[in-house]
């Protein structure tokens, strides 16, 4: 697979060079350097010019001295120039052959309710998503998503959301399968070192059904029932030791035992964003749920979370986004929490710049300040925004007692976001933590 991907850029480059070679303008370029200097000046005598030729030659765009001065640059730029011209020709061919409308015709239904779109997931990689809107009722949304990435990490998901029920009720159905082959476990607690990392693969399958009640467009209450199964097996990341070499069931509950969790969860959401490309407003989510192993293993735990975001508009589309969140998990006596279900920071959406699950414990708190400003507003399109962020967070056994400013982990970075009419289409972010740079990209 990698070999195949490595070959593609070279082939593509050769193709654009080929196209560019056929597109290079005949009147300019290297051969023109040797053009006669006599042609550089206009004829001094119109009668002589008329008698010499009815149609005099074309006047050169550059004088001889300009050609000589430009010669080194022309030589240096020859190949990139061909490549750019070739890329332009390729764009022209795509347009002339109506490849985009044709692809659109294949991928998106005539009424726009059905579509197959490229997608990219931070966890797994590139894939496709099939979407069908308004299947049962207006606003309902069926989606099938599949993605795969390096080392065969892959994911498949089915979701049928916003199925209308009588009253202001809606229901969602969801089924997710994930096989994440390069997960790292660093142990539990806020002081774990990078060297404590061990590699594992996690295969999970979860189904969920939820019922949501809406009040207006900004408030919702959602109850979710779920059943999920997780299995930990050997990882494929060569940079870390296998998890079995560093941890056992005592230090990593769920390492050797499959968990089969049935759960119930209640979430309240208040959303006052002003648009799909929000510039003001905010969101509060409060959720709590209980999960119990139905496969005979001693796993059972509560998990509660609070997340809040507030957008502070400054002016002219500049926005400061402030986020704060906390998560707590606890278990009844003699019951355990699988290590991969512990709250953590380092996940996308918590503290950027750290590996997923870099710090795990029963409590996690994190916050973020993000400054976004438009850098490019294509005419008739929504803006491309740049953002700078500072994230900070901490995990602990009980942060209401253990919180320590010295154990707060910070991440800084920036990125780009592009919004469409229905919300965020693509984002690319780079976060720097204490140990590494992390890249985040998502599409559709």
């Amino acid at each position: 697979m990698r070999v195949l991907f490595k070959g593609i850029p070279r082939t593509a480059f050769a193709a654009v060079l080929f196209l560019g070679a056929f597109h290079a303008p005949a009147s300019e370029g290297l051969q023109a350097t040797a053009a006669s200097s006599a042609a550089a000046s206009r004829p001094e005598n119109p009668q002589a010019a008329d008698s010499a030729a009815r149609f005099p030659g074309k006047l050169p765009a550059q004088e001889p001295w300009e050609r000589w001065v430009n010669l080194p640059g022309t030589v240096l730029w020859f190949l990139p120039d061909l490549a750019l011209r070739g890329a332009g020709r390729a764009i022209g061919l795509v347009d002339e052959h109506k490849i985009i409308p044709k692809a659109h015709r294949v991928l998106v239904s005539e009424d726009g309710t059905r579509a197959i779109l490229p997608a990219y997931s931070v966890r797994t990689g590139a894939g496709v998503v099939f979407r069908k809107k308004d299947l049962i009722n207006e606003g309902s949304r069926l989606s099938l998503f599949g993605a795969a990435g390096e080392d065969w990490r892959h994911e498949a998901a089915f979701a049928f959301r916003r199925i209308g029920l009588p009253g202001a009720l809606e229901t969602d159905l969801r089924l997710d399968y994930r096989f994440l082959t390069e997960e790292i476990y660093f142990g539990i607690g806020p002081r774990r070192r990078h060297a404590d990392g061990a590699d594992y693969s996690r295969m999970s399958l979860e189904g969920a059904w939820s019922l949501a009640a809406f009040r207006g467009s900004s408030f919702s209450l959602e109850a979710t029932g779920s059943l999920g199964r997780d299995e930990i097996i050997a990882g494929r990341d060569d940079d870390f030791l296998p998890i079995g070499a560093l941890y056992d069931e005592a230090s990593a509950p769920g390492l050797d035992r499959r968990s089969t969790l049935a759960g119930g969860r209640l979430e309240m959401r208040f959303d006052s964003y002003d648009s799909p490309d929000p510039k003001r407003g905010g969101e509060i989510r409060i959720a709590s749920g209980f999960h119990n192993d139905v496969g005979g293993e001693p796993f059972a735990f509560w998990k509660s979370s609070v997340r809040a975001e507030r957008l502070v508009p400054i002016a002219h589309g500049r926005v400061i986004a402030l986020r704060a969140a906390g998560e707590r998990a606890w278990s009844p006596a003699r019951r355990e929490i699988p290590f991969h279900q512990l709250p953590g920071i380092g996940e996308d959406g918590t503290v950027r710049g750290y590996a997923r699950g870099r710090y795990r414990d029963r409590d996690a708190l994190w916050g973020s300040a993000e400054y976004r400003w438009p850098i490019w507003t294509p005419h008739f399109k929504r803006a491309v925004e740049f953002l700078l962020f500072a994230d900070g967070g901490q995990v602990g056994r009980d942060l209401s007692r253990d919180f320590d400013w010295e154990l707060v982990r910070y991440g800084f970075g920036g990125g780009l976001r592009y919004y469409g009419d229905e919300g965020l289409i693509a984002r690319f972010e780079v976060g720097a933590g204490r140990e590494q740079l992390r890249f985040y990209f998502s599409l559709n």
Partner: protein
Amino acid sequence: MPAMRPIRLLRVLLPGLALSALAAPPADAGSFGDLPFRPPAPLPDDRRDIPPPEERPVNVWEDAWQRQFTTQFSELFQPARLVRMLTGNPKQALNADAFGDVANSSWYVRREGAGRLMGSSACPDTAGEWTVFKAKMQGKAPGMFVKDSSGRRFIVKFDPKGHGGLSTGAEVVNARFLFAAGYNVPANCIVHFHPGRVKVGEGVKLVDRRGRTREMTAADLEEVYALVDRRPDGLIRAAASAFIPGKGLGPFLYEGTRPDDPNDIVPHEHRREVRALRVIYAWLKRFDINSGNTYDSYAEEDGRRFVKHYLIDFGGDLGASLYGPTPPARGHENVFDPHQIGINLLTLGLFVPPWERGDTAVAHPEVGRYHSKGFHPAKFKFIVPAKAFENLTNLDGYWGARKVMAFDDSLIRNLVEEGRYRDPEAVDWFVERIKERRDITGRYWFGKVAPLDDFRTERTPDGGGTVLRFQDLSVRYGLEAAAEAEYQAVLLPGDGSGVPLPAPRLIKAGEGLPLPPAASVAASGYRGRPALAAEFRLRRNRAGAPGEWSKAVRVHLEGDAAAEAWTVIGAEREE
């Protein structure tokens, strides 16, 4: 081959650049040439009979890419441009005559008086039936190709729904402005037609939005009508643009020449009338200069067949766009503007562009977003860069500004009224903004050179001598007060030898410069006749304080000793 390190590369390139700067010729047409002055030979008329060239389709997206990326990057590797910039020697237009003007051509025709008005004879007959013979369904601004009852062919374009008058008004008004300025445009006018009088012709094919080719039906027409407004009486307002006569050859480009047109010998980026379009377009807020908005036709005129160059599609000009009022950023940023993106990025968004801070409200829905506040004639940006516009020099700008300033108030009103706007207040408002932008344009470009022009010699009333008269265009167009203007004139022998003859003198507006008898001047001209050069500078003395002397204009005179007469044979301007 080992890669050359950047420092070593600089060591090689910098001395080369320095040598190139020394080797570069001194400023040519931008400052004064050698004496005796020799007028440049006129270029051959580019409307000579030629065999039919091939149609040359240009893909709009590809052209935009090449202009935005390929050309822009390749210019970074052309140090000659840098050398020219550093030595103050911009490359002047190749088709300017001895006065800096351009001859009538297949690009431009000097129009004056009533000849500047397009007339309305090209309007389709709305009383008869129209037949659609070709579809124009793509894009968000559909239209149709129709034949009227007399068989004349038109492209019919509409306003975006909810924006009555906006695009159709711009289409008609701007075409007429550019026609009056001397350029070739299709004849067009506003029409109100009844949809019931339109039928689809036999076998008309269309490519729908999803790329499928099929036969056009009446339902497709209804789809078009659904996207536009109808008046209460059921009529639909549209801009009807007459088909350009001759065989269509595809667009012309803002650089290079058409290889198969032997008349087309001047690279377009070095044509003064093409470069100066930047000035005129900025005034008229013609932002969209993609290759789809130009057109070459193999036309026949006076028995000669040649390529004639047209400007087309004006529905997105002035304050309009095909979607509604023009977006605020238009004219201030290219669609993809790396320079502006870089500024936005590096200043962390703390720099808010003036257009974003300023008043971007739409004053009149029919007119759209066309403001004079914040307008800068030299900073207007287009959808993508154009090489011809990047080559604009002060002399090109001055030429363009002269065209702009030649639109007097009544002509502007006359042309705007051709848009047949419903709201008289909108017309008044629009006319005022166009006038304001015109004056801003004139002030800017006239400030870059000495705006003295229309040089002519006159016999003194007593018949005993000759004076050289001129016009200060800033005064003539009311941009500056005559009382504040003061001019310095110096006479030079025509061969450039010796000291000025006589001593420099100051003259006031309306005065002429007395010339010595031609018989008393040495026959030092390029044709062996008496020759003189008169150099003028001007200053504006505001509030009693003397201003700075401007750059100079050098006027060349050729004498006729026997007739005791002087003739102006050229004028050069300091860039």
